[in-house]
Structures are given as C-alpha cells and as structure tokens.
C-alpha cells in the first residue's frame, strides 16, 4: 500500500524565517503535486512536478522532486503571514490521474 508522509505535520514559524516541508512516499512515482488549503476552504493547486529533478518556484515557495529518493520538498523563503495554511502533497503512482494519494498535510502558522 502506498504511503505518503509529510514532515512536519505542524509548523509554527516567525515571519522572515526559512523552512522546508518534506513529503516522502513509499513507491515509485514521477508525478507529484502540491496543494494549499486555507481554513474552511478547498484545495488550490500550487505546483505540478512531473519528472526527477523538477524544480518550480512561485514567490516565496519553491518545490522540488527527487524521484530516486522518493522525496519532494517545499521550501519557504522569508515567510510572511499570508503563507499560513495547510499544505498537502499528492502522489500519482500509476501515472493515471485516477489514483492520487494525498499526504496528511502540514499546517503552517506564520507568526508576526
């Protein structure tokens, strides 16, 4: 059974600091997706990583994928309060688009 783990599950950080969220998965997959969810809202797509070594950046967030290590990272640079949300990674092990497995989510709080 595919397992997707995220570390940490809860993260409280000061504004201006850097931090990394890790997403590990237990079977081969060359597709990984990051989503953001604000409280009471739905999931919003952040990044689509489609190959080993893929790196995507948007503002203060940068995501990367290492398929050999079965690891994706979401790096936060100089955090601001607006980044407070829950971040999910999702793996598509069959590359079919029909069997996403989501991680448990990392709840991020950025404190002023």
């Amino acid at each position, binding site marked *: 059974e595919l397992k997707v783990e995220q570390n940490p599950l809860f993260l409280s950080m000061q504004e201006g600091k850097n931090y990394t969220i890790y997403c590990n998965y237990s079977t081969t997959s060359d597709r990984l997706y990051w989503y953001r969810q604000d409280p009471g*809202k*739905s*999931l919003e*797509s952040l990044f*689509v990583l*489609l190959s080993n070594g893929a790196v995507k950046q948007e503002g203060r967030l940068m995501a990367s994928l290492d398929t050999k290590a079965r690891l994706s990272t979401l790096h936060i640079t100089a955090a601001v309060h607006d980044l407070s949300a829950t971040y999910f990674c999702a793996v598509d092990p069959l590359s079919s*688009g*029909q069997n*996403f497995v989501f991680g448990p989510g990392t709840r991020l709080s950025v404190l002023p």
Partner: protein
Amino acid sequence: DVKVTQSSRYLVKRTGEKVFLECVQDMDHENMFWYRQDPGLGLRLIYFSYDVKMKEKGDIPEGYSVSREKKERFSLILESASTNQTSMYLCASSVSGGPNYEQYFGPGTRLTVT
C-alpha cells in the same frame, strides 16, 4: 481557468434523509472525483468516474453511491444519511491523457447530519 462548482457550500440534513451533492466542471474533463475530508484523517477518496456512466470505488465507498449521466456533472448520493457522514465533501476533476493529471477542486460542501 478550470472551474469546478458544487451545489451547496453548507448543508444540514437529518439522519435517514437522502442527500444529493452535485458537482459540475466546465473544462470537459474525463475524470471526476468525490473525496471527504475529516480532521486527522486527511482526504479520502469515495468514488471516481473516468467517463459518463462509469464509476470506480475509492477507499471508503460504503454508504455512498454516485451518478454520472453527463460528462460535466458528477453527483454523490447518501442513500440514508447518518451522523458519521458529517464531513467536508470535495469534488475534483482532471483531464485524462497527457503528462499532467492535476486535479482541480471545487469549493467544498460542509455537510452536517443531525
């Protein structure tokens, strides 16, 4: 932009009622999904559909059924609602074929069963 809409943002129903949750997408996507999200349990797939009238069970199909009569519409049905079905329900859609199977989510329906 892809748009996925859900019929209700909030819904309150009584135990034993039949409940319909509807989802509509406007991007001609082949795949559509229903998830439920509960604190501490993450997102769990209830059912998905890869074509009109086609459906596949997800991880937690018990107590639910689905209907897809038109490509753009995917309905989740709770035949006899129970309190343990109180949850946030999320619909999603994605294209079939090509390298990017990104799922696009609707705004969610928060269902309370009393």
